[in-house]
């Protein structure tokens, strides 16, 4: 039973489950080059989520200037109601639209809707889950985000 003996002598560090060489950390998380559309959408969902959380905290803080009276509120408006402030708001509109629409796609996907049915793996072994429904969902999220940004720009810069 030579094989069993070899297995017994194998160090734990040689085991594939304890080999951490493939751990890339943040770099691996941010690197979409080796992946398809689903990976890019995964990346965008997380980046937009973190960005929107930071904006939300800033917005709660910004709004709290209300309780210090009209002059404090106007001083805050002078900081935020500028062309750059409006550009930032347009970015918030785009990211929130993408995050919302793509999030709805993910809810359906996690519920098993739109991921297709299991089939025989044939060359070139395309992922069955990344079908035209999923790709369309990602494209719809991107297109709606751009449309919302254009509408937002029209509101913000059109009333100046």
């Amino acid at each position, binding site marked *: 039973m030579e094989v069993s003996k070899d297995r017994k002598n194998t160090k734990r560090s040689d085991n594939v489950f304890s080999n951490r060489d493939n751990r890339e950390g943040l770099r691996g998380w941010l690197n979409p080059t080796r992946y398809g559309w689903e990976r890019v959408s995964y990346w965008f969902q997380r980046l937009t989520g973190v960005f929107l*959380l930071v904006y939300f*905290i800033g917005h*709660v803080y910004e709004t709290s200037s209300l*309780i210090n009276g009209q002059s404090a509120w106007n001083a805050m408006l002078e900081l935020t109601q500028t062309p750059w402030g409006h550009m930032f708001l347009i970015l918030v509109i785009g990211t929130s639209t993408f995050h919302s629409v793509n999030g709805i796609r993910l*809810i359906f996907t996690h519920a098993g809707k739109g991921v297709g049915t299991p089939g025989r793996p044939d060359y070139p072994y395309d992922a069955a889950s990344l079908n035209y429904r999923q790709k369309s969902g990602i494209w719809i999220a991107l297109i709606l985000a751009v449309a919302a940004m254009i509408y937002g720009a029209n509101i913000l810069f059109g009333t100046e």
Partner: protein
Amino acid sequence: MMIHESQIMKIHYITGIAAISVVAVHIIMRLLMPFSASLQYQNVIANYHYIPYALLLESILILIAIHGFNGLRVILLEFRQNRRWEEGVTIFTIAATIAVIAYGTRTILLASQAPIG
């Protein structure tokens, strides 16, 4: 009480969908008049005096704080998994959620009692 990750994700999805609905109303309220006029101090304070709108703002605050910080928790748990990290991340996100809700609620309460003009 132990909450399963699947239950937390259901809460994440429900708060996300609910937040889209209430934020849509919040944005529509900004568009009922010219955007710059809607941000004038008197108009904003008048919004806070209107109890249903103040309740809407409170619901936005709670829903987005829960959804946002739980999303951050999920991201941080994807980076690293061990008992100490997971407990630390969970405690941090719960504390941050409570702090943001408390700070925002204070603003809503005080602004709803502030004199208009």
